């Protein structure tokens, strides 16, 4: 379509020019005859010559004009060139002037310049110190002023210098003070409560009988997710509750919160027990079972030996206890011969002893099994650790260390379970031995001396 339009336009233009070409000869051909044409040509020649003459004159006069123009342009160029040289000169002059003036400034600043450098450096250092200082929990926002002063390009004013001096002095004075103040404390669930906070210098924050922590990034006081050992925390309550002038001991954190932070990462006994896994629980079960048996045996054996002691005092009246039952056999035997009596007594003794000794060997077996189970836990833990190593490599000791401490916990549990069980076994076996000795060796003697006395 577009092409069609352009061709149309071109065609129209051509027809138009063609028509003008055709029109001119038509106008000149006004002369009708040859004479007329001749006179016309003559007249034309005269006018043409006049015209040319006139143009020639014009050209000549114009030429003179151009000369004048060139002259004036040349003089303008020279003027500009001169101006350029002049400016160049004034530029170098100014440069030298600036140089001289800045040299003058440096001389005039002298020692002050050095001092401003120190101010900048000190306030830069100071802003970092103030940000992490526990004193900032009481007086927040001090570090920003210092930061501004440290970053400033221009010279500090006297007011700013006084601010720096004041900040340094405040930090020094406050780090030597034990102060109580009310502040918002964020607890572990994120709730914010206002409470009375005690600050010991720039070392430790305490509140509500607990150690607190200061987060310099957010500028908030935080409750520690985990407190150190109870006896350390107990000193805090005593310290906070102390009357003025009273002297109490308190644990403070000389690393300004670092140690308390490490304490929160330390595993509690409960967590360590949990780390023992299923083997740890089995061992704990064994310990509980063994202790139950031991206590039960200890109680029954003590009761039994008390009964036997009472029975020894009244041999004629056999009661329902192990010695009494043996004496009953003797009594029921009547006047049998000595050998039959011995056989009967031995039989009765044999019936009594297993009851007394039952369960004691079980305690011993449990005491022997517990450390072995602990070893089992250790080995399974080590296997887990080595599986971690095959997955993650040995690059991060933290991954391995976690598994290894877990593995060792079961060994500890095994030993912890075995130790009381061994002691309890010693106790119970001692008791049982004294009872069986009475039944085994002394009962026949008792019977014999009784019989002898009756025979007399």
């Amino acid at each position, binding site marked *: 379509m577009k092409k069609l339009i352009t061709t149309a336009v071109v065609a129209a233009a051509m027809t138009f020019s063609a028509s003008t070409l055709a029109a001119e000869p038509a106008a000149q051909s006004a002369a009708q005859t040859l004479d007329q044409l001749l006179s016309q040509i003559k007249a034309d020649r005269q006018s043409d010559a006049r015209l040319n003459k006139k143009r020639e004159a014009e050209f000549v006069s114009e030429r003179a004009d151009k000369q004048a123009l060139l002259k004036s342009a040349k003089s303008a160029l020279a003027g500009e060139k001169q101006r350029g040289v002049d400016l160049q000169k004034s530029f170098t002059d100014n440069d030298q002037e600036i140089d001289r003036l800045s040299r003058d400034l440096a001389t005039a600043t002298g020692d002050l310049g050095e001092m401003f450098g120190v101010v900048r450096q000190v306030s830069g250092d100071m802003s970092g110190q103030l940000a992490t200082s526990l004193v900032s929990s009481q007086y927040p926002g001090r570090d920003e002023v210092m930061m501004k002063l440290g970053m400033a390009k221009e010279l500090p004013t006297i007011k700013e210098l006084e601010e720096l001096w004041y900040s340094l002095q405040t930090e020094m004075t406050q780090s030597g003070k034990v102060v109580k103040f009310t502040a918002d404390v964020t607890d572990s669930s994120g709730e914010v409560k206002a409470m009375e906070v005690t600050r010991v210098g720039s070392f430790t924050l305490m509140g509500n009988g607990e150690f607190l922590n200061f987060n310099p990034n957010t500028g908030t006081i935080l409750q520690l997710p985990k407190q150190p050992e109870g006896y350390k925390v107990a000193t805090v309550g005593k310290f906070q509750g102390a009357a003025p002038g009273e002297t109490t001991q308190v644990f403070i954190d000389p690393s300004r919160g670092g140690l308390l932070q*490490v304490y929160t*990462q*330390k*595993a509690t006994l409960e967590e*360590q027990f949990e780390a023992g896994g299923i083997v740890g629980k089995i061992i704990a079960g064994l310990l509980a079972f063994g202790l139950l048996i031991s206590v039960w045996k200890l109680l029954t054996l003590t009761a039994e030996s008390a009964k036997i002691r009472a029975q020894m005092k009244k041999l004629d009246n056999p009661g329902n206890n192990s010695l009494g039952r043996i004496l009953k056999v003797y009594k029921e035997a009547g006047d049998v011969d*000595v050998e039959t009596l*011995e056989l009967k007594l031995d039989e009765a003794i044999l019936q009594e002893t297993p009851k007394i000794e039952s369960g004691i060997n079980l305690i011993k077996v449990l005491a022997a099994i517990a*450390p072995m189970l602990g070893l089992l836990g250790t080995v399974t833990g080590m296997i887990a650790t080595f599986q971690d190593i095959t997955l993650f490599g040995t690059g991060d*000791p*933290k991954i*391995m*260390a*976690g598994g*290894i*401490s877990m593995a*060792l*916990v079961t*060994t*500890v549990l095994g*030993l*912890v379970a*075995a*130790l009381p069980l*061994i*002691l309890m*076994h*010693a*106790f119970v*076996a*001692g008791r049982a*031995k*004294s009872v069986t*000795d009475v039944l*085994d*060796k*002394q009962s*026949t*003697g*008792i*019977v*014999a*001396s009784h*019989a*002898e006395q009756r025979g007399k």
Partner: protein
Amino acid sequence: MLYLVELWESVRDFMATGGDVLWLVAGALFLMWVLMLERYFFVSFVFPSVRKEIIAKWDAREDSTSWYAHRIREAWISQAQEQLNARMGLINALVAICPMLGLLGTVTGMIAVFDVMAIQGTGNPRLMAGGISMATIPTMSGMVAALSGVFFSTRLKARLKLSAEQLVDNLPHH
């Protein structure tokens, strides 16, 4: 007095580097020695009079050869032996426990070392050294405690056996 304070200071330092398990070892060692000293005292000062009494009672008997006499003699010997061997089982158990307590200290110390590694990495050997001293000192103490116990309890056992045999020898069938 000052000497005692210094001694106590050094003991406290030792206990602090060894960890809490060291107190258990110390307790076991103390109990073991109290029991052993009590046994030594008994066998050297109390038992001779007991023995004399039994021998006198036996010598006073007219009949010493009948079945009754045999049984009565056996009962007396058994009673005397029971007196002699009282709490010996506990002493033996304490001797056996000492190395196990040392091992317990070793393992808890190693846990402390690995806990430090888990939190801080292996970058700081000084932090780990605390756990290592907690691991090695209780083992050594447990061994020393057990060795002292083994030596003296064996001597004690032999002495008790000898005393019992002396008693038996002194009860003849006359």
